[in-house]
């Protein structure tokens, strides 16, 4: 399963729409097999455009994207190699869910019962023979997921798959993604749900205005970012006690500061020794949301 070939490489990719909209700007990153990579960025950052270029649907202005070293359009069996579910999934409204998948099975030379298996997997068994016209957003989302997984692809590319899913659906999706990654598949998921991503992704790629602002594993991004929130009625005395210590202190509000470079235990001990009264002493864990906003706001 984890044969080489599951790697997605985006190499210096640029897309300019209509001569002036720079949707993606000299973007480079890679996505590795056996892990889930979250693809993040605010609205209009260029996530969908990037994924469409990876999938050969949008022609890059310059640069290239490959899957297992090959541009998408040259893949010999695309359905069995890459499964993709794009934003605003698109089905013929008068066609049933089952027929949509059966057409896909026909093109890819897959046995027809794959269609029914996939509908069961995504929980659409009862809606299989209904026209897509009457589907809710979450049902459409599930159907595009079924379509993406139809050929048991090595690479799975999902554009905002959690949109429209209910809490149960989101939890189920999270488990599914984990399962796919454990099987050695490459999973690239764009999302707005930062907490979801933080919970499930191994790596993140953060995009803003078409440019890469940060890429790395959650562990790398969170290294050294833990901090301690200290609240005291006498911040002046606390500042005095911290003078000369290897820490950075940033104000949070008139009665609290955020301290980096010292554990909560060390800080508590220091305050106790100096006789400073404390009203709060809490560890602040890495927060993807905060990192995201610090990287993407005000630019």
């Amino acid at each position, binding site marked *: 399963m984890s044969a080489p070939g599951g790697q997605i490489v985006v190499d210096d990719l640029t897309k300019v*729409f209509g001569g002036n909209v720079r949707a993606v700007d000299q973007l480079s990153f890679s996505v590795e097999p056996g892990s889930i990579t979250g693809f993040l960025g605010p609205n209009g950052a260029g996530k*969908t*455009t990037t994924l*469409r270029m990876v*999938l*050969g*649907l*949008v*022609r890059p202005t310059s640069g290239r994207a490959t899957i297992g070293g090959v541009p*998408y*359009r*040259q*893949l010999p069996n*695309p*359905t069995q190699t*890459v499964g*993709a579910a*794009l934003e*605003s999934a*698109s*089905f*013929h*409204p*008068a*066609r*049933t869910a089952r*027929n*949509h998948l*059966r*057409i*896909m099975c*026909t*093109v*890819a*030379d897959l046995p027809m019962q794959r269609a029914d298996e996939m509908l069961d997997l995504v929980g659409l068994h009862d809606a299989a023979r209904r026209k897509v016209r009457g589907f809710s957003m979450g049902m459409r989302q599930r159907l595009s997921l079924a*379509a993406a997984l139809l050929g048991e692809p090595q690479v799975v590319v999902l554009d905002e798959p959690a949109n429209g899913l209910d809490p149960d659906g989101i939890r189920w999706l999270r488990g599914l993604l984990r399962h796919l990654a454990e099987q050695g598949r490459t999973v690239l998921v764009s999302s707005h749900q930062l907490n979801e991503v933080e919970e499930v992704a191994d790596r993140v790629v953060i995009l803003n205005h078409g440019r890469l602002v940060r890429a790395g594993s959650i562990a790398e991004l969170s290294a050294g970012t833990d901090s301690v929130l200290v609240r005291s009625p006498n911040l002046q005395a606390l500042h005095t006690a911290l003078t000369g210590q290897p820490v950075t202190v940033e104000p949070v509000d008139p009665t609290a500061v955020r301290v980096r470079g010292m554990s909560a235990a060390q800080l508590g001990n220091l305050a106790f020794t100096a006789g400073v009264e404390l009203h709060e002493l809490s560890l602040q864990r890495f927060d993807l949301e905060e990192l995201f906003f610090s990287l993407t706001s005000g630019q």
Partner: protein
Amino acid sequence: MIPVVRAEFLKLRTTQVWLWMLALAVIAGSLIVVGGLASDSVHTPRDVPDVFANANGTLLTAFVLGVLGITTEFRHQTITTTLLQTPSRWAVVAAKLFTYALVGLLYAAACAAVQLAIAVPWLSAKRIDFTLSDPDVGRAVFGPLLLFALFALIGIGVGALIRNQIVALVSGLVFILVINNIIPAIPVVKNSYAYTPAGAVTEILFPAHESTPGDVHLIGSGGGVLVLLAWALIPALIGAGYSMNRDIT
């Protein structure tokens, strides 16, 4: 390539447009034949071919079906799935050309069967000799088989080139129904009529010397087939090589 063609048939079968278009072609064609037979103009075997040939307007159903066969994919964005599964735009357009030519042929066969079922007993009641082995009758009854296939191909070609459903349908129909028919009346361009779809239909269905509008020069039925093939393949080639490669967003 065979799976892609089979999938095209499945796409067609899993929605209902094909049925509506078929019903339209069969019913409209039959009504025209009935109208011809009921009128006072059919007295001798020489009058028989035009009874069938006059139903040629039903060709437009094949054209419309072809246009819908490709533009519906853009309208509902199923083209994304299609191109993800078959990244070669050439393969997609070729599969559609093949599929819709065959469907056009089947449409024409259905129309011909119903029209014959009406006309044969009617003509014998009128004591007018009728034989399919007469070349003029044969061409009027079986010519549409070829023409329906060719017009379906033109529909695919125009759809691949234009992509937008409304624009493709409206411009195609306005050209065939309006512009094409006034060409013989315009002195400077009237001899280009032989190279237009309506001109080609005239060449194939009506013996060239009789009912040529505006006395324009025609090039025979073989030439007519080539003309229609060109009208199908040139847009199909530009469509597959250029339009279908434009961004799908």
